[in-house]
């Protein structure tokens, strides 16, 4: 029995050693792997054109650096288009680090989830990847040079980071969150990334291999696209995005502009709590209450040292004006949600919980009476 055991162990070891040294498990070594950091989706007639931004590590004499390259593929479906990349480059694209999926204008014209479904199905794509739309084509967007990061993907990750989210100016969304919104028929929203050409004199322009100067862009994601039932139905302006961000995102401090008596102020809104109460009478009534504290960040008029030292305190008229401005923005949001049927407040779910028999289908939001109450106070 002891000899049998010994034989057993030796066989086991030999088995492992054979596979170790032949390395024939269909493994793709890292040297043959293309690390996909971001993917852009455009429609190409009946099919899709996919642009993948790959990180291609380079060994240089001075230091190891990472270059990026954009590779495109075309196919009937997104999966087919990605496979085409493998066949043209010989690299095996790994999507494990794909942190950004950008949909070009053409991709959001039709059913949006047709482009995203591949990433949702694929186990290897992290579903915490950011999803966004862009103006123009996603291919051009990903190829853009930006001074804020080595690659456009990294730059977008910065502007849609959790820090930016906590400032309220952007409404970043992950693939998981967007999918939940899509499948619960809540409708969904995605940030729209806009390229702004960098003004002359602001830093140096990049020079490409041919020696020509390339334009650099800064990215802005303060506008938000609204979707309902997979179709794009509208957009939120930057102020509306900011207001929605304050309501939803547990902001650390959101800079909200207010004008009072011709003087412009920037208030820092903090500790915002939004609550929704639902009542049923002849029609369903939903009351949106927002309470927050506000501090004075800046104003365009000069103040005395005493006034500046009281940074935390905002004068009552300014607070009142701020409340009015926020109420106005919330009302605009309510109009948008009714118009687009994009339930970004989650009203349907709330009503369904409280009054399960209520039909919350298409057009339901138009049958609700909304009232808004905003309370700002000094900390």
């Amino acid at each position, binding site marked *: 029995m002891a000899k049998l055991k010994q034989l057993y162990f030796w066989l086991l070891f030999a088995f492992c050693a054979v596979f*170790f040294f032949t390395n024939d498990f269909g493994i793709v070594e*890292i040297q043959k792997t293309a690390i996909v950091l971001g993917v852009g989706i455009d429609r190409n007639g009946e099919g899709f054109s996919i642009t993948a931004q790959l990180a291609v590590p380079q060994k240089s004499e001075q230091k190891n650096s990472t270059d990026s390259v954009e590779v495109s593929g075309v196919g009937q479906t997104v999966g087919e288009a990605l496979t085409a990349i493998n066949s043209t480059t010989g690299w095996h694209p790994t999507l494990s680090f794909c942190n950004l999926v950008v949909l070009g204008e053409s991709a959001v014209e039709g059913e949006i989830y047709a482009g995203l479904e591949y990433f949702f199905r694929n186990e290897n794509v992290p579903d915490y990847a950011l999803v966004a739309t862009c103006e123009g084509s996603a291919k051009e967007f990903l190829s853009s040079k930006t001074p804020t990061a080595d690659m456009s993907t990294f730059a977008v990750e910065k502007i849609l980071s959790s820090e930016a989210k906590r400032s309220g100016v952007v409404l970043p969304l992950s693939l998981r969150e967007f999918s939940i919104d899509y499948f619960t028929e809540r409708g969904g929203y995605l940030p729209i990334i806009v390229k702004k050409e960098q003004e002359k004199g602001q830093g140096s322009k990049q020079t490409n291999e041919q020696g020509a100067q390339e334009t650099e862009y800064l990215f802005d994601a303060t506008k938000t696209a609204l979707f309902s039932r997979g179709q794009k139905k509208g957009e939120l302006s930057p102020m509306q995005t900011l207001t929605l961000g304050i309501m939803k995102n547990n902001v650390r401090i959101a800079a909200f502009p207010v004008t009072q008596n011709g003087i412009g102020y920037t208030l820092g809104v903090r500790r915002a709590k939004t609550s929704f109460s639902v009542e049923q009478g002849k029609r369903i009534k939903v009351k949106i209450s927002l309470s927050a504290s506000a501090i004075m960040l800046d104003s365009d008029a000069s103040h005395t040292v005493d006034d500046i030292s009281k940074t935390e305190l905002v004068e009552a008229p300014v607070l009142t004006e701020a409340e009015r401005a926020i109420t106005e923005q919330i009302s605009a949001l309510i109009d948008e949600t009714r118009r687009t049927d994009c339930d970004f407040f989650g009203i349907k779910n709330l009503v369904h919980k409280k009054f399960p028999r209520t039909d919350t289908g298409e057009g339901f939001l138009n049958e609700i009476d909304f009232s808004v109450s905003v309370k700002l106070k000094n900390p």
Partner: protein
Amino acid sequence: MKRSISENAMLIKRRMPSEDILSFSFTTRNGTACKLFYADGIVDKEMMGRLVITPLTAYGGTIGKAEIMEAIAFPEVKTANRMEQLEKEIAEGNPVLFVDGIATGFIVGTKKVPVRAITEPQTGLVTKGPRAGFIEDVKTNMAQVRLRFKTGKLRFLNLKLGKQSQTNVAICYLDGIAKETVVREIEERLQSFEIDAIPDSSYVGRFLCQGQSLFKRIGTTEKPDVFAARIAEGRVGVLVDGSPVALTLPYLLLEDFQSAEDYFVNPVRASFTRLLRFAVATLAVLLPALYVSAQLFKLQLIPLPLLLTIASSIQGLPLSPSLELFLTLTVLELLMEASVRMPKYVGLALSVVGALTLGDTAVNAGILSTPAVILVAFSGIALYTVPDLVETTSPLRLIALIVAGSIGTYGIVTGALFLLVALVGEEQYGSPLLAPFSPMKANDLKDSLVRASLPALDRRPRSIGSKNRIRFKETTCN
């Protein structure tokens, strides 16, 4: 034996013709012939002259066994009638005196074996605590243990093992604390095997443990204070003549993660260092395997910035990650082996060559990558935080690498479980190898990977199975 001194001398010479067996003839004052046989180099000739030759040359009384014994007046004098025994005593370094007319050999205990001084052992260095170590002479070692237990309960059982070497082996235990069944079992096992020579205690250790295993089954130490502490816990110790490494049984795997110094520093520090040793030793074994499996099977284990750095470093390398690491580890083992064996005067030069070749040149030549070199260097150093387990962890590291390189991260998990399945079944002398973790003994966990304060360690470990569990009692001060 014969009465005639010349016949006895002839018998001895026939049995021991070697040229290092010398004899010295002298007579008593009344002319009785005497002859001393001794092995050159392992006898204290001065004492022999002072205690045997001088008194006897001055002795003029009757010649008899008792009279000769009285004349010598040295406490370590024995008599024997059989030539085999006399031969053994001469070989051990005890001179044998023949007196004409007496059919008895007188064995004088003036052995003087060349031994080295008691120094701090290389394998048990401490910054705080005793620095004495065992040496090759079993009697000195026994004395060091005796000095630590000034009680009649300390017992030594002396055995002679090895047909040719007749090596002295001493089983050491505390009566009333160690389990008698363990003592008996050790004694029986030692006496049950026949071997020509015992050059080292590891031979004895091999016979004390049944079966083969990659893991140690017997505790070892070169320090008397550690030996004494283990005896006090209820273990049984074995000292072997000719080896500075003492053995202790039963053995728990946990012992090697503990150091003597842990008991001389405060408990928080001790706990921290024990946990660190355990964590680092585990990392040393698993890190190369994880690195390879991350590269080949699961890139997400590596954060993206680090992954890009690694990917840059390995561009253009001719070897796959698994082979690269396997070769680097093999070269590291080679370097370590060579550094132990090589003469000191070439050590420095070859160390530089080894470091430069592996470190700088291989990386610059594009044969190895920097992360692999760093990883292997870390693993090599980390392994020596638990030096007593290096003979186990080093092959384990290679096995883990092979498993990870062929099966991946799942192979590491199943391999670890495989190892655990094998280890939980290991038991020697009634103590499981993984105690007190498996089977879990809650009280023993106080002195495991953490160390509670001394007052909390008032019970002997249940895992050892000692008879008397109470170590100390706190008495109230008035």
